[in-house]
């Protein structure tokens, strides 16, 4: 059936188009002022895909939570960096071209450094969620901000929490055997521990032996046997997920039962797969890592939103990634609310004035120093108890009391 266009319908259409055209610019202006477009760059595929997807959960829930909190509208523009620095750079360019007012991401120091240069060149604020290389905020950038600990802070906080743990549990271990993965991350951590430990004179222990191993190792019999042979009081471990599982099993197999396993700042032992694979053997492992405050008001709100979107998941397994990604977007939204503008320079100035006290992660308020770095971000001593990673220190955020020395694996 065809419909004829009469002069009357044509005139009506023309009038409507004219009215739209006349008001469109105002509409655009209003839309720009009301909505903040956040370009989220995360490694959702490739070698870091698992962590990138975990971070994405924090980004996905942010618009809804922030609308409730601040009354600010956010539009997410997601981009996958594919765990590749070249892609990270071009995707950042693309997001800016598409109209992103601020960039957030990317869980990797190499990608962060590449995106930072694009952001600086184009004058677009870039808020780093997770990336620990200290140099990123030492470059004199004006548009780059980071709400995450640097590598050296992670080690320092991790070691301090070990001291606190010994104090709280009235224990004085004298020796430790240090085992670490020999990849980039493990080497960097080992270097950090080597530099920081001598300055921590309050720590009662000394490292009797350092054993490095391949993170892709399928068997750690020799390494564990060597570590057991040192008779060290506890195991200081910098690990990743798979090797942590293999190592824990091997410890049980060789009936090596030190006072405990403590990580001064590495992933692996608080991750869901560690619990699923090891079952009861996962109990009592300790990780001192940047973490969220389970008792914070904002955590409860975020957890509710998280469970609504991921009913079969638990926030505790994504806490670090969700917490810092959410906070990066919160920083952008808070600045947008104060600046009342999406102009990049005005936004960057507003970010510099940030003072967010009601936050999800541990530590002091989110306040950027002159270099764009937040200082005083806290770590938590997270111990696996009742098949869940639970904060046991600092006391203010504790969900349970620390157990150290740990009971034997037979009693677990």
């Amino acid at each position, binding site marked *: 059936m065809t419909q004829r266009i009469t002069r009357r319908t044509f005139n009506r259409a023309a009038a409507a188009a004219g009215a739209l055209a006349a008001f469109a610019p105002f509409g655009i202006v209003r839309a720009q002022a009301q909505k903040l477009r956040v370009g989220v760059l995360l490694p959702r595929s490739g070698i870091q895909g698992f962590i990138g997807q975990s971070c994405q959960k924090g980004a996905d829930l942010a618009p809804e939570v922030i609308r409730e909190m601040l009354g600010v509208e956010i539009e997410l523009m997601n981009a996958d960096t594919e765990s590749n620095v070249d892609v990270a750079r071009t995707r950042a360019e693309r997001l800016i071209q598409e109209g992103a007012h601020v960039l957030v991401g990317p869980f990797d120091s190499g990608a962060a450094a590449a995106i930072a240069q694009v952001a600086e060149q184009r004058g677009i604020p870039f808020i780093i969620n997770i990336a620990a290389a200290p140099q990123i905020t*030492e470059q004199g950038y004006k548009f780059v901000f980071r709400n995450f600990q640097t590598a050296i802070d992670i080690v320092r906080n991790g070691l301090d929490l070990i001291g606190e743990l010994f104090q709280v549990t009235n224990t004085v271990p004298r020796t430790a055997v240090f085992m670490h993965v020999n990849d980039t991350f493990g080497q960097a951590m080992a270097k950090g521990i080597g530099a920081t430990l001598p300055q921590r004179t309050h720590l009662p222990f000394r490292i009797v032996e350092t054993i490095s191993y391949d993170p892709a190792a399928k068997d750690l019999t020799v390494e564990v046997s060597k570590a057991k042979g040192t008779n060290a009081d506890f195991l200081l471990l910098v690990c990743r997920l798979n090797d942590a599982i293999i190592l824990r099993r091997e410890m049980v197999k060789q009936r090596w039962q030190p006072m405990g396993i403590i990580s001064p700042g590495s992933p692996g032992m608080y991750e869901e797969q560690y619990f699923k694979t090891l079952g009861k053997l996962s109990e009592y492992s300790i990780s001192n890592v940047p973490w969220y405050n389970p008792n914070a008001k904002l955590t409860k709100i975020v957890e509710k939103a998280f469970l609504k979107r991921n009913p079969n998941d638990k926030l505790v397994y994504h806490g670090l990634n969700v917490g810092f990604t959410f906070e990066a977007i919160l920083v952008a939204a808070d600045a947008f609310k104060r600046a009342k503008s999406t102009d990049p320079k005005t936004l960057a100035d507003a970010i510099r004035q940030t003072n967010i006290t009601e936050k999800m992660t541990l530590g002091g308020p989110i306040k950027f120093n002159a270099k764009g770095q937040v200082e005083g971000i806290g770590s938590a001593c997270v111990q696996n108890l009742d098949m869940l990673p639970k904060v046991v220190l600092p006391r203010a955020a504790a969900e349970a009391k620390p157990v150290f020395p740990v009971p034997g694996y037979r009693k677990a």
Partner: protein
Amino acid sequence: MNRRLVLLGLLAAALVALPAFAGPYALSVATLILYFAYAGQAWNVMMGFAGQLSLGHSLYVGVGAYTAGALYFHFGIGPWAGLWVAIAACVAFALVIGFLAFRFGISGVYFALLTIAFAEFTRIGFDHLAWTGGPGGMFLRVEQRETWDLANFRGPPAMYYYTMLALAAGAFALCAALVRSRAGYYWQAIRENEEAAQALGINTFRWKMLAVAISAAMTAVSGVFFAFYYNNLFPEQIFHISRSIEIILGPIIGGLGTLFGPILGAAVLTLLSDGVTELLAALGIETPGIKQVFYGLLLLVVVMFLPHGIWPPIARRLRL
């Protein structure tokens, strides 16, 4: 011949004029294409011309990048001076690898394994080298990005684009000259049948060493560019085998042993990768990893239907 020159001239004119029309995103993609075209051309000298399969070209990218980067970082030596040291370092590495392989009759996949091994242990070495930042990486300070500072290789994206364009054009011209030189003919003879080439009196050791050295020197230059374009270097990223694969995919898809193959291959791969991303975004598909599936399938189609690369049938059709 005239038709070739006209087409080359048109392509050159379009590439020179590109920054006037392209936005920063397109310019960054174009820079990446030229980078892979250049590095692919360098690899093509070794594999495409001389038939020596290297799967460890990330070694030369990394050593080149770290040498020039460290000289700039520690002593303030500019990239143009550092470039020659980087080339010398990479050629030294290449000659050691070449000597070990060719003197002791290591060839084919075993030679490829040797190149991977060198890249891998150099990565481990740089992981432990505190002077270059170890695994924590080396960051070059960026003083300014507004004006062209060619001496320190600091400036706006257009400067990097034109530099890469000049390098790609230079590599093309050099390879065009090489392939028609005595070395080029000897390399092709070695590639097709090494024993026959030896029987004809060609000193295969010497000419293979030359191919390896030239390829390494050219790749070193791409490493120096990488260092000053990205301004941060991590052993895990720059020496990784995935970087070697990225380099060799262009010439393989474009057409091994051809002059236009690496350029066309780099363009097709980069545009395909970005095109698939854009297409999926337009379709509202956000499933992680789906892009790699589509990308892989498209590559499979290209390899199945154009086993000698994209360029040879195009060249035949255009009678080039």
